[in-house]
């Protein structure tokens, strides 16, 4: 759509503001036009201004059910991005083309979806057009936040799959053994006596009984895990219950904390917190117990449990092309070299490292060369291989593989949410002394954490009254004192009521009359 048609489309619904939108830009660029003779200002009433449309992405299947209003979100996408994903490539405001950040593309017209009549009519439309947190918006918000809970649902499922797989392999092994045993007995009846055959067959029966027991236990465990999956889905549904929403949110915070504690291996605290918050069904304490074993052994410089774990999960580790086993073997090799058992080391390499040689030649070469050095060598390249920090590295690798296998995120949930939250809250004002103590970023620890993160951006003014700490919006407009300080109408009215119409500025102490105040219009 070129500029002309866009303009006419844009202004057809809006009689009063029939001025070309780029008047401001023209002025700024130094161009003027004579004899305009217009009646209205360019940007019209603030209601109209308040309706900057922000276009959300439409998801590929076109469903926009999360946002019932036509809230649309302006995405500054440069021309380099392929046109296939979001169908609205470049939208930006003409009037601010010069000052937008670099990667905004060429100016285009804003699409005014909300074509309600402007002018003095419909003062109610203005608050509606603003981002007032109606209950629909809140529900939409909750729905969006539920979408982040993949880990909650996936982990017990993976655990269940694991148990099912284990039981299946058990049954498969036993069945094959029994069948082949029977076949063998049938064939070799001539060479062995009847008693022997009878004995063999009864041993098969005992074996099957053992299998039955194990399968029963396995079945019970599977049922528990199914129950856990179900409980979690129930929990997600319960967010719709408006009374218990605060409890739900507290439970969510506790879940995030328990996840962090488990990943940092603080198992007792995690257990305690789960009990205190009554969220045992919603956290993965049991999953981490098996990780605990392996991690503790690795900390004690013992690779055997880790190798066992790798063997148990061989197929899936292979699918994700994991090098964990290789690295564990390398470490064992280094330990052998450290103990000066070179011949053993060489045999070990032949047996266990050779299969990995094809894909990891460089790594292997580097490590095998340690044979030529002693463990207290000064040569930096090989010294680092003998450091105890190698074990910490192995622990980290194991943790990552473990989390990946169970469908968990590679970073603790706490870090993910904290980063997002700090970015959303970070403004330059947070680092000043006058920062309100209610802001988390007034605390030293949070400030340090937030330093490398980007600032958040605002497209609309959001003003907070110094006195009442409430938002100053259309219902509570800002009033300006003669000394230039601004407070909300409600707070100033209250103050005037209690003091015979006199207003004292809380910050400078100057006194003035209530009728000296001027209204300010801020979009």
């Amino acid at each position, binding site marked *: 759509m070129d500029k002309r048609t866009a303009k006419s489309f844009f202004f057809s619904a809006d009689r009063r503001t029939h001025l070309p939108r780029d008047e*401001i830009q023209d002025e700024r660029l130094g161009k003027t036009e004579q004899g305009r003779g217009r009646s*209205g*200002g*360019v940007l019209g009433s603030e209601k109209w*201004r308040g309706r900057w449309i922000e276009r*959300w992405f439409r998801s590929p299947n076109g469903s926009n059910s999360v946002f019932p209003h036509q809230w649309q979100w302006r*995405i500054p*996408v440069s021309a380099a*991005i392929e046109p296939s*994903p979001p169908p609205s490539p470049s939208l930006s405001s003409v*009037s601010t083309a010069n*000052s937008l950040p670099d990667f905004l593309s060429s100016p285009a017209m804003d699409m005014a979806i909300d074509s309600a009549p402007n002018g003095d009519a419909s003062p109610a439309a203005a608050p509606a057009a603003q981002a007032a947190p109606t209950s629909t918006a809140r529900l939409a*918000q909750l729905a969006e936040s*539920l979408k*982040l809970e*993949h880990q909650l*649902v*996936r982990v017990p499922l993976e655990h269940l799959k694991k148990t*099912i797989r284990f*039981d299946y392999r058990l049954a498969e092994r036993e*069945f094959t053994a029994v069948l082949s045993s*029977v076949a063998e007995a*049938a064939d070799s*009846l*001539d060479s062995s006596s*009847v008693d022997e*055959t009878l004995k063999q*067959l009864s041993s*098969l*029966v005992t074996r099957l009984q053992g299998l*039955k027991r194990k*399968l029963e236990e396995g079945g019970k465990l599977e049922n528990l895990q199914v129950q856990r999956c179900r409980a979690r*889905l129930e929990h*997600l*549904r319960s967010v719709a219950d408006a009374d218990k929403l605060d409890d739900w*949110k507290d439970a969510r*915070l506790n879940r995030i904390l328990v996840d962090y504690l488990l990943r*940092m291996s603080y198992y007792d*605290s995690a257990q*305690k917190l789960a009990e205190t918050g009554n969220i045992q069904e919603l956290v993965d304490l049991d999953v981490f117990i098996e990780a605990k074993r392996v991690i503790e052994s690795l900390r004690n410089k013992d690779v055997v449990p880790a190798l066992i774990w790798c063997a148990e999960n061989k197929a899936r580790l292979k699918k994700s092309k994991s090098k964990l086993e290789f690295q564990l073997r390398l470490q064992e090799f280094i330990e052998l070299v450290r103990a000066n058992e070179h011949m053993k080391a060489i045999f070990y390499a032949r047996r266990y490292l050779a299969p990995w040689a094809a894909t990891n030649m460089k790594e292997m070469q580097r490590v095998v060369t340690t044979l030529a050095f002693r463990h207290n060598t000064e040569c930096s390249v090989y010294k680092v291989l003998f450091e105890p920090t190698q074990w910490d590295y192995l622990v980290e690798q194991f943790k990552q593989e473990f989390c990946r296998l169970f469908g968990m*995120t590679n970073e603790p949930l706490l*870090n*993910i949410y*904290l980063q*997002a939250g*700090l*970015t*959303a*809250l970070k403004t330059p004002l947070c680092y000043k002394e006058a*920062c309100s*103590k*209610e802001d988390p970023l007034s605390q030293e620890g949070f400030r340090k*954490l937030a330093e490398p993160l980007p600032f958040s*951006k*605002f497209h609309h003014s*959001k003003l*907070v009254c110094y006195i009442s700490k409430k938002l100053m919006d259309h219902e509570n407009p800002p009033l*300006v004192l003669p000394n230039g300080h*601004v407070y909300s109408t409600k707070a100033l009215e209250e103050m005037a009521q209690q003091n015979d119409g006199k207003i004292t500025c809380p910050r400078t102490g100057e006194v003035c009359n209530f009728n000296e105040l001027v209204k*300010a219009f801020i979009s």
Partner: protein
Amino acid sequence: MELDLIQDAFDRVSKKQKLSSSKTQQLVRQIEHEIEQAIMKMQSTENATSCPELKQILADLKNKLNEFSPMNQLETLQKDLNITLGKYVKVTEKSFNPDISKAYRNVDFDPHIVNQIIASHFYRQGLFDLGDCFISEANEPEAAALKTPFLEMYGILESMRRRNLELALNWASSHSEWLAQNGSNLELKLHQLQFVEILQNDSVQNALSYVRKHLAPNASAHKVEIPKLMGCLVWSGKLHKSPYADLLSPNHWEKLADEFMQQFCSCLGQSYQSPLSIAIAAGIHGLPTLLKLESVMAVKKQEWQAMKQLPVPIDLSKDFQFHSIFVCPVLREQGSDENPPMLMPCGHVLSKQSIVKLSKSSTRPFKCPYCPLEASVAQCRQLHF
């Protein structure tokens, strides 16, 4: 959020799992049964050594087992189950966002700072045992110092819960200056509540002497409340029938406890709500936006890591608004010390830079972009939010 779809898929999984489990056990029983039968048959035959009958029995057993082929059945069951599981996994991956760590920037959070934040969060919630356990596990001995103020606070809250206002009154009187500075009348409210308590449980005389002792010194400041309390004296014993019955309601205690907590935290220089919970709640609000943004910017990974300011706003609710942010409608930039907001005579507000630009270096009067009123630069006043 298609929770129903997910629920259905999961119900199918659960059914299949039960079926598979019970069928497997049934197979085991069948095989066992067959073998036992064969054993019984063999034992019941008369002849001792290898005889064609024994061979026949074993051959029969083998054939029977091969016939209903438990291996194949097991395999089919497992395959079915795997298919259902796979479908469920697909449904979850579609409904949920499978990888929320995509928007994570590779900045390392110092674990010490994070641990201290968590420890202070636990102490603030009153979970002192948990906090101690955490500190010992995480090896952060210096965080134990965070405990003391909150111990005090919870001690006072506990006593308030038991309707004992003594500790609270002590605290309020020792911090009365600070409270007065911040415009809080916590002390007065505590005295009021205590007065009502004394009136209920004790004699009028004691109540009167209480007022004389505590409220009389500051009588001028409490012009409205003291007459009310005096009025209560008249209805002693029948307070619930008096016009002052609302003073008896129990939620005064709760509200006062809340206010006390607020003032206490404020005095410590901390926020009323745990900062960790605010930050995480803000994160939950903002993460979907960030994920969408990241997917759009996926091509330019470098810029994602290195950006100084987000290119799009994150819409947080007004609970998270702690600062006044002024955004000039013309420039779309935030106001700062170098670019403060200016009020024009018509009542509209623009930033200084846009005014300067509009007026072309402060010579002639310019038109407000909103309304057709003209104004000159000198008439514009700087605003302080």
